[in-house]
């Protein structure tokens, strides 16, 4: 190694390079590098390079051509396709089964852990493979949660040896949904039924917090299961992972091949504002799909959109109203119209009539530029299509009297026909002959019945509408929960909180649990106990049917928060619920949590009795362990037991357990809520035993830990070092001890 540190070398170099006089510089170097000829030689050499170096570096970065930079994410120089038989990761390529805008799809064989055939898609474009894969990984958990017969499972992602990203998914062999429909000349109703299934699949994904972002016919394949066509949505997770190229840049340079068809893009996606995509973008794309299934065309022509350039494309999607489906078909050339009708086993006029009305309304509602006015969920869209199929009023259409009546007539053609005939007969009958009297009376009876029936039907329709309103409200709430979950995954707490704060309290789904738990904790960490308690209350309601391990955690969050807020009645209720639910618990950690959280305030003898089984369960557990040298779990158990005996009035026993607990200091150090709580409980025991001095000492020890913690700001924590609610529990108890100190003052 050099005798001198580098710092000096740089210093000497810098000083020397500022000297213009060679002789002076030489003298300086002699002096500075005295006794180190190698150093002198090195620096002299560097000084030789110095002027050239400066020149070499100058202006390199300052003048990169714009075109050069723009090429960065443009397509990679056309690479060679992966050969059949190549092994990529755990997959062996068997056969090329497709080639799309952004990649090549192979059928591949997975060798481990199970042998199966999968679809492997290698992305063509030159993009940052690492972040593509990272984005996929980020989405992976959500993708794994999707389990739906109409969704092809996303399995894996990685990078090929040449550095291109690839995705692995369930292998689906089938036709594009539009092709399948046309090849088989599916009539309208069957097309709509397929479409409804697609909507349900998308809805399922939305409920898991996954947005597809690239719904188009080539991503919906129809396969036959025992002769029954089943649509499968593929490519979930990919659009998001390769979202990067959907930037202004690539839209400009390579967007045609990349997106394949911008016709399916929602206006907000075309805006490229990046973050602002939600489930309603998928609803828009579903609307385009429905449009194409109905008319054979997309609302805007793909080729024209591409040709028009980015700005024009955006303006079109943002401002131009597409022709309604029936109009689109009406304006077709004769031959085209005939073909379109034939593909639907229909005739031109019938086709146009079938489209105009409900289907026009439904499609246009899904395609609304303003996503607020679209169907808020994929299910909402599916419901409406279903209603159309069963001749019920669709939501898309503003309810007018005539329209509802029309629907009623269509559903009850026979009854109405009778009614009308009778009315006619009445007019005629009254005027012409008394002979008709009896007939008339009979007729009136029938007419009355018909009228009665009509009223009933109308009421039913009205009830139906109210039901629909309710369903719609529910769907909207669910939608908001999903949105909130997505926001939370991006750490946008305020927005998520605002979104759910206004919701009616009936959000019983798992996404809801995640949302309300996260928001409750978020408030708690900011010391906002009141809103925290509100979120946790909803959370516990959501959890009600579900007695999972984690729900004892949820109780542990709410319990100290309620005591902190002095909401003792609510706490009492929570405690009962907790004791009821966990009466026969067999997990030591859950038992410990339940025991201590049930005893945050003095309890009745009865309540203490109820807890007896849990306490003895814990004490058996503790006895099995070495209490002389407790481990972490035992230490927690001891603190809970200490609290139990204290509430029982068995102070000596309680103090003994607390002392044992305090003997164990975990690797996390003395800064532990367990130690804080044990100190506080011990202090309360000592007060009651009349040992004021040690009591004050323990209380001070516990309090200083607690105060420090709250002063530094609570962190969420973990099971190892304790959670925030463990600290809150300690604090709640310390407040009780503090009061005791006053009461028991000498």
């Amino acid at each position: 190694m050099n005798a001198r540190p580098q710092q000096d070398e740089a210093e000497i170099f810098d000083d020397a390079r500022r000297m213009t006089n060679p002789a002076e510089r030489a003298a300086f170097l002699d002096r500075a590098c005295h006794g180190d000829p190698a150093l002198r030689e090195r620096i002299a050499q560097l000084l030789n390079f110095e002027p050239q170096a400066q020149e070499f570096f100058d202006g390199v970065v300052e003048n990169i051509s714009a075109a050069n930079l723009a090429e960065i994410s443009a397509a990679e120089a056309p690479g060679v396709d992966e050969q059949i038989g190549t092994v990529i990761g755990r997959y062996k390529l068997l056969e090329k089964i497709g080639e799309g805008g952004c990649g090549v799809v192979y059928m591949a064989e997975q060798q481990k852990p199970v042998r199966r055939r999968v679809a492997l898609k290698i992305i063509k474009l030159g993009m940052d493979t690492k972040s593509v894969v990272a984005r996929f990984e980020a989405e992976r958990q959500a993708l794994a949660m999707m389990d739906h017969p109409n969704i092809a499972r996303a399995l894996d992602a990685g990078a090929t040896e040449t550095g291109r990203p690839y995705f692995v998914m369930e292998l689906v062999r089938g036709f594009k949904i539009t092709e399948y429909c046309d090849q088989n000349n599916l009539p309208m109703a069957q097309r709509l039924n397929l479409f409804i299934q697609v909507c349900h699949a998308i809805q399922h994904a939305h409920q898991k917090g996954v947005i597809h972002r690239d719904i188009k016919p080539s991503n919906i394949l129809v396969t036959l299961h025992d002769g029954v066509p089943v649509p499968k949505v593929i490519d979930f997770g990919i659009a998001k992972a390769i979202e990067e190229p959907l930037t202004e840049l690539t839209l400009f340079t390579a967007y045609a091949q990349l997106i394949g068809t911008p016709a399916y893009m929602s206006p907000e996606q075309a805006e490229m504002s990046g973050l602002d995509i939600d489930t309603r973008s998928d609803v828009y794309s579903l609307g385009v799909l429905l449009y194409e299934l109905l008319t054979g065309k997309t609302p805007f022509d793909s080729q024209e959109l591409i040709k028009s350039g980015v700005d024009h494309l955006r303006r079109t999607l943002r401002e131009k109203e597409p022709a309604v489906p029936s109009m689109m078909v009406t304006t077709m050339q004769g031959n085209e119209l005939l073909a379109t009708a034939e593909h639907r086993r229909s005739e031109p006029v019938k086709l146009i009539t079938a489209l105009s009305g409900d289907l026009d309304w439904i499609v246009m509602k899904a395609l609304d530029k303003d996503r607020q006015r679209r169907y808020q969920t994929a299910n909402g869209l599916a419901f409406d299509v279903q209603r159309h199929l069963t001749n019920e009023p669709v939501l898309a259409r503003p309810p007018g009297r005539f329209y509802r009546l029309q629907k009623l007539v269509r559903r009850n053609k026979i009854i109405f026909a009778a009614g009308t005939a009778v009315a006619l007969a009445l007019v005629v009958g009254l005027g012409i002959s008394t002979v008709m009297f009896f007939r008339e009376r009979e007729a009136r009876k029938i007419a009355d019945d018909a009228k009665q029936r009509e009223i009933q039907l109308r009421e039913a329709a009205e009830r139906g509408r109210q039901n629909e309103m309710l369903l719609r409200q529910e769907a909207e709430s669910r939608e908001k929960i999903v949105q909130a979950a997505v926001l939370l995954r991006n750490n946008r707490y305020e927005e998520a909180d605002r979104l759910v704060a206004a919701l009616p309290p009936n959000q019983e789904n798992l996404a809801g649990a995640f949302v309300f738990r996260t928001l409750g904790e978020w408030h708690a960490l900011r010391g906002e106990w009141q809103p925290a308690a509100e979120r946790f209350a909803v959370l516990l309601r959501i959890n009600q049917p579900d007695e999972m391990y984690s729900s004892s955690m949820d109780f542990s969050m709410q319990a100290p928060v309620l005591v902190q807020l002095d909401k003792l009645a609510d706490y009492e209720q929570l405690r009962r619920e907790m004791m009821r639910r966990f009466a026969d618990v067999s997990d030591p950690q859950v038992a410990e949590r339940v025991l201590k959280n049930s005893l945050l305030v003095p309890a009745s003898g009865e309540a203490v009795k109820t807890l007896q089984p849990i306490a003895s369960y814990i004490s058996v557990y503790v006895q099995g362990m070495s209490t002389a040298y407790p481990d972490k779990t035992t230490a927690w158990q001891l603190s809970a037991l200490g609290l139990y005996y204290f509430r029982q009035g068995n102070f000596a026993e309680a103090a003994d357990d607390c002392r044992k607990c305090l003997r164990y200091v975990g690797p996390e150090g003395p800064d532990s809520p367990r130690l804080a709580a044990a100190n506080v409980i011990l202090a309360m025991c000592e007060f009651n035993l009349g040992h004021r001095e040690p009591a004050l000492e323990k209380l001070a020890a516990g309090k200083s830990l607690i105060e420090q913690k709250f002063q530094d700001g609570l962190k969420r924590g973990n099971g190892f070092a304790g959670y925030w609610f463990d600290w809150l529990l300690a604090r709640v108890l310390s407040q009780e001890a503090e009061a005791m100190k006053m009461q028991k003052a000498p």
Partner: protein
Amino acid sequence: MPDHDLTLLLQSLGKDDGQASSELLPLVYEELRRLAGARMRQEMAGHTLQPTALVHEAWMRMVGESDRTWKNRAHFFAAAAECMRRILIESARRKSRLKRGGGQAKLNIDDLELAAASPDDKILLIDEAIGRLEKDDPEKARVVVMKFFGGMTNQEIGEHLGVTERTVERHWAYARACLFQIIRTEI
């Protein structure tokens, strides 16, 4: 729109030793590429632009005026410099590969050619030399990346590395000469 998440992220980097966190890089990287593309459209292909100006613009767009914390700014710029390095290398590689007809033709440039090397070739050479310097003297290599690719001022680099401006200037001059020497004699 200032991005508060980003500010939070920057703050959370805290006592980071200057290596931009793995979370920050992709964000900045994406923004830079996006900006480059936007510029490309505005200014048309023949024009030139300054990557360092892009870095400043990215800062304004992603963090904005709201955050004037030196530390955050320095973290951001350090990350941006690393990103810009990757972007420029990526671009230069692609071009030189095209020119040389595919394959990762090894650059081999003798003295005569060196003076006339295109900016792309220079960037590739400099990057490779930095790679070697990183092994021997990582701190100076970092100064080069921040200054050369990130367009950071000596003051900003000094803040970030916790050294004086004068030291930054020295490191830069010294490292530049070292890099050139590496290019001349080793590559």
